[in-house]
């Protein structure tokens, strides 16, 4: 299995390289950005933007290839040898895993770029059917009997871990930091979940296209995208009273970039994400920009939310993972006997 995924990644890289190699024989720089699923459209546009910028400032051509998949799967592919110059994943835990298991980058990678190496953010919101027939306004409404909640399995989906932590953080605050209270809330919440999809896109499909469930817990960018794609006459976004600040991080994979001699351009590729142009682009793809001037411009798109970070809500990713998602963690306890 291990070998198979490695082989597939190898073949896919080979194909990418062949395509690129055939089309251009000039001395071009190549970057491989290994990312997660919902960033595909954003990075397609951003790659063009960065290539122009790089040509204008250095005179060099750069070709950026992208690879998308579930965040954890992508991290594993990099550990097993997918030659990523940069990774742009859904959660810091996955990049931590690359640092720990592969030793491909520094353990303190997250301090190398501003804002914990997350150039854009998102948040976890509730998507309901038009007119909000079940009157869902906050997290408490999700545990009412008879409400069907759609969220993917946090064990297989990085995105779903944000959902889980958002609900947990809310419940913990609500119960005055009483963990048992938060556990009870989570138990009731998952009692209302009829389907556990293995990925975030799968859950969106279940809710939007299969018509299953009353409410979808989703990343804001996915929810807004669903509104745009399927029409705001079918769904509406409900912003809960408190939610988590989702910070999808980026990092240069040092060892690979060194081997490719692409350290400089890889670093520039990530730094340019913080430029006003790139921030504007991120906002157009429904990621919340970090730059204040851009955030102000898109204030009407992104409602004001009361957020907490993973560190505030759960003491960081390593803690959250150990406590909630590892074997025997709070998630397993929900389904355990």
């Amino acid at each position, binding site marked *: 299995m291990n070998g198979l995924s490695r082989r597939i990644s190898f073949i896919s890289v080979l194909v990418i390289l062949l395509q690129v190699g055939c089309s251009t024989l000039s001395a071009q720089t190549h970057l491989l950005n290994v990312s997660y699923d919902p960033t595909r459209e954003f990075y397609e546009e951003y790659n063009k933007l960065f290539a122009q910028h790089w040509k204008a400032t250095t005179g060099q051509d750069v070709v950026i290839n992208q690879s998308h998949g579930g965040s954890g799967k992508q991290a594993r592919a990099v550990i097993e040898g997918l030659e990523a110059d940069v990774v742009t994943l859904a959660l810091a835990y996955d990049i931590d895993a690359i640092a720990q298991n592969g030793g491909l980058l520094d353990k303190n990678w997250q301090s190398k770029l501003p804002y914990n190496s997350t150039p854009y953010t998102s948040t976890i919101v509730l998507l309901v059917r038009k007119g909000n027939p079940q009157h869902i306004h906050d997290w408490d409404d999700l545990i009412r009997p008879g409400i069907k909640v759609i969220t993917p399995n946090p064990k297989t989906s990085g995105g779903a871990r944000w959902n889980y932590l958002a609900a947990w953080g809310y419940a913990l605050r609500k119960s005055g930091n009483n963990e048992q209270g938060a556990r009870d809330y989570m138990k009731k919440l998952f009692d209302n979940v009829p389907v556990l999809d293995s990925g975030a896109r799968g859950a969106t499909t279940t809710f939007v296209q299969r018509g*299953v469930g009353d409410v979808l817990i989703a990343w804001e960018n996915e929810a807004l995208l669903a509104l745009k794609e399927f029409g705001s006459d079918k769904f509406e976004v409900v912003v809960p009273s408190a939610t988590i600040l989702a910070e999808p991080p980026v990092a240069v994979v040092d060892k690979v970039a060194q081997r490719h001699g692409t350290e400089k351009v890889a670093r520039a590729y990530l730094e340019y994400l913080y430029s006003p142009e790139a921030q504007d682009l991120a906002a157009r793809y429904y990621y919340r920009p970090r730059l204040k001037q851009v955030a102000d411009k898109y204030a009407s798109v992104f409602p004001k939310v009361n957020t907490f970070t993973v560190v505030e809500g759960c003491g960081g990713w390593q803690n959250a993972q150990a406590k909630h998602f590892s074997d025997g963690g709070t998630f397993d306890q929900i389904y355990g006997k």
Partner: protein
Amino acid sequence: MAIAQINQVRSPGRRWSFVTKSSPLPGFRLSFGFTMIYLTVIVLIPLVATLLHAARGGFGVFLHTVTAPRVLASYRVTLGSAAAAALLSAIFGMLLAWVLARYTFPGKRIVDALVDLPFALPTAVAGISLTALYAEHGWIGQYLEPHGIHVAFTPIGIVMAMSFVGFPFVVRSVQPVLEDLDPAMEEAAASLGANAWQRVTRIIFPIAFPALLTGTALAFARAAGEYGSVIFIAGNMPMKTEITALLIVTKLEEYDYSGAAAIAGAMLALSFAIMLLVNLLQWWIQRKEGRRG
């Protein structure tokens, strides 16, 4: 293990001859050697790698991993659904094979070609289509839900997806046997006074049975290992509709490589034991039949 693998794919009837006595045909060493190299590269090395991975954590960890309640529940879901699906495939596959072998009707070639479709269709596509059809607002689901019949996101859905990928194995195993069946035998039986029921149970079924068993075993094996189509329709609820393959993926997602390999190894052992049992049963039946004939 390699011998058993060969045993599975050989046509009913011939066995062991390549081990027990040298064939009069030339080229035995070359072809046998090539077969073994091929099997080793394609089948054995990946399997051994899996088992080695599984052994990395030590036996205690292995045992703990493969006997966790959720994992045990997933074996029940997977093997139970696979058995149900294999049974369904056996019944309807046999029927379809019979129709294709015995009758001519317009569009027969198209029906014949349709049987192979599940082999070629990416299983994820099958899973997504089945889910779309049977979800509560789907084409078929909307008529079933009011009657309290839930297919999508329940074990019934799992059996459905597994039957889809499994039944061609039964048809393709049984169909040639039925086509080769000499009508003279049935006519002889009829002339001796056997009624239709007797002709089916005494003549046709015993001849087709070994092939049916092979096909059913293949359908079972395919269903037990199925991931792509099941994952979309299963609902994936721990303890209820979570298949073993998903747990393996879950372990990988936690970067627990030896845990994933441990469950894979356990699943492999279970499936292998069942396949071996089916093979033994088949061998026993054939010996009995041979003695009688």
